[in-house]
């Protein structure tokens, strides 16, 4: 079970970030939060997600004994890349238009 968890860890990080940021976005728009504060909240959430998935990727990279460990490490970096790329709209698109 541990190997499977390590294989999934990076992408679980992305999944959790995706759910939280999408929920935050939905709540913010529905509640008509103050635009600039909302934007900052989104940016902070994105930053925390990137830091967290980076941490996971580094942690997975430390251990590379078997082929599956190496796959897990690669997937850690995939999780980080996905977290960066998926939420680029936060930086460039107006929040609730």
């Amino acid at each position, binding site marked *: 079970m541990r190997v499977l968890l390590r294989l999934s860890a990076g992408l679980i990080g*992305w*999944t959790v970030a995706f759910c939280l940021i999408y929920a935050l976005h*939905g*709540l913010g728009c529905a*509640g008509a939060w103050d635009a600039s504060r909302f934007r900052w909240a989104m940016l902070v959430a994105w930053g925390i997600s990137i830091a967290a998935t980076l941490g996971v990727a580094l942690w997975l990279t430390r251990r590379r004994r078997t082929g599956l460990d190496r796959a897990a490490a*690669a997937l850690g970096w995939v999780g980080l890349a996905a977290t960066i790329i*998926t939420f680029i*709209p936060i930086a460039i698109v107006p929040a609730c238009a």
Partner: protein
Amino acid sequence: MSALKLHYQLHAIWRTEPGWRGHLRSVNHSDMGKRFIVAAFVFFAIGGVLAMLIRAQLATPRSAFVGPEVYNQLFTMHGSIMMFLFAIPMFEGLTMYLLPKMLGSRDLALPRLSALGWWCYLFGGTIIIVAMLAGVAPDAGWFLYPPLSGKTYTPGINSDVWLLGITFVEISAMCAAIEITVTILKLRAAGMSLDKMPIFAWYMLATAGMMVFGFPPLILGSILLEVERAFGWPFYTPELGGSPLLWQHLFWLFGHPEVYIIFLPAAGAVSTILPVMARTRLLAHGAIVAAIMALAFLSFGLWVHHMFTTGIPHMALGFFSAASALVAVPTAVQVFAWIGTLWQGRPDLKLPMLYLIGFFIVFVIGGLTGVMLAMVPFDAQAHDTAFVTAHLHYVLVGGFVFPMLAAAYYWLPHITGRERVLQVGEAAFWLIFIGFNMTFFLMHLTGLLGMPRRIDTYPEEMGWTWLNLLSSVGAFLQAFGFALVVIDVLLQIRLGRMHRRNPWRATTLEWAMPIPSPTYNFASLPVVASRDPLADDPDLGVALARGDGLLANGRSGWRETIAVDMTSGTPEHVAILPGNSWWPILTAAMLGGFFLAMLAGLYVVAPVFVVAVVGLGWCWAWSNGIRIDVGPVPIGNGLSLPTSFEAVRTTGWWGSVFALCASATLFTALIFGYVFLWTIAPNWPPPALIAPSLAGPLLGVAGAAAAVVGSRSGRRTLGLAGQLAIVAAMVWLLAAAPSPSSHAYGATSAMLAAYAIFHAALAAIMYAFLIARARAGFHSQARDGETRIVRLWSDHAAGAGIAVIALLALPGWLA
């Protein structure tokens, strides 16, 4: 013991009974796999006939062949049948048949569960087809969007047929998902660590995992829509605080992963067959495993790309666009690995290879048109035209049907034990390949000329006539091709010469047995040291048949196979699997009764069937277990292991874990629905909230605490009382809630409470079962597997109870 005597002993234990008893009672995975495959092909043929009728209608302008009412049923049923009754059951069948053989096991982990799934599939599919013949088939599109599918616009039972029939069939998909996951994780050959597992098992592990998390949102959506239609609870009605968008979210939360749930098994077949055809090994095994995992996760982050025109803010659309683009990367990784494998090998143009080439061509074209559709300006033009229909057929037929045909021709010798006769298969391939491209390549052009999807007729002046006529001719060519495939298979069964073992010189374990395979697969179980056991020892099959492996005996008449440690593949215990049984078919029949009663609107009769299902479940569970301690038993090679009667974590325990994962996903989707409606839907906040009170919530929390303590300390009566207290607390809260039909708030609250009541009641019944079993002598210090399983269900019920109390009581307190 001589090889022949061993065979007779094992055959007596594992055999399917002759005649009708065998048909009704068998739980053997080879039987189940073959039945799923044959039934799925029959449904494919029915779906194909519907496609022919659609093409006949569209062949000429102003066609009077069928009217719009029938035409709507035709395309709805074509889509629904191909998705739910063909594609999913087809790969389930292939997997059920192959997986234990590939992993070096004698059967699937939970054989009676797969039998239950089979009967649910057969009964559910039959209900849908009979409804179609009776002229009341679903007609609101395969995605059944409300409000079109709601009571106002579809007053008949057409939508109910879809909701109830498909949900019934989904039970079989959930059974298969749990079954496949547990089998891959626990029932492997000794020494088969995760990284020595055949690549097909990785694909199926990801697929089954996706099914565990992907299907519950659809099942929930269907339950809510059916409850709205039957009892008027307004989940999707905006006037009363519902929202049709909730259906779209729940449907596509399933619907997009579904595309990959279908694609991954097919890709697994490609990754297995291609290296054998190219006489080499699969390139970049680790990268492919990583790509599979990435696909399994990323494909859940795209569902909203089916809802781009529903007014969701642009930033959120951006998230889903980016994820949609990302998901192409792992697919590309696989395609490059396949090309590299072909490059390094010496491909042999046998029939399976021909289908793989067909797959490459069609799938790549489908991918390219997908990229075209991902360009927003192009999509705005092509949206809802025949171009999209053409694209999705290139992806689905290219990505699923062609690989499955390759798989069929690759593994048919295993099933029939015979060689192909003549060159009928090659002729069939060319008919299918040319016919398919003729139909759907031209449809791209018709789409670009502006022909919309789902129209039943068009005027001559549009200039679509010739393209449509040629498309229809292509469709009929394709149909002839599939008919030839059937003829080819029948010829092979009837006239083919007996085949030698391992005709393709493959390296995976399913070829280390006589073909057609005996019911028990292996006379003795292999110990493997690499990913290609048959390359290490080409005569492995003979040695195993001689009894040189593990568990080479038929002691006590038990169906035995080895359960291993998940990661390392070290043997852990001897799994004693259940034999042929009436319980699966009886349970499926009672479930069928429930669904039919709901369909007929006999809401008073339906609960009777629920009671029957509970009673049958009790008897079913009672038929397992043993009243004496067995202790460790020898497995060969001087090793001894405990049996599953005395194991710590049995396959049943793991099955419960994944069943609860699925249930927790459904619960999460329900909470999502509650929060979604509260924040997004019109006409909120509701006119009245649940009045704040202390007694109800306290009773529930105390019950949950009692359940947790009871399950841990072995005080079963305390656990039982705790679960009943949770039920009582829920009833208390519901009594204080506004009526479910008055507003979506009341409806979702009632649904949340119903979820908690269902699980608490189930756990209470399980405690009652434990008490009875302990009295009957089924438990001992060593034999406490049932207690461990009940603890899982009891803890889940307690947790769900507390979550529901918080969700229901907090708004009233905060307001």
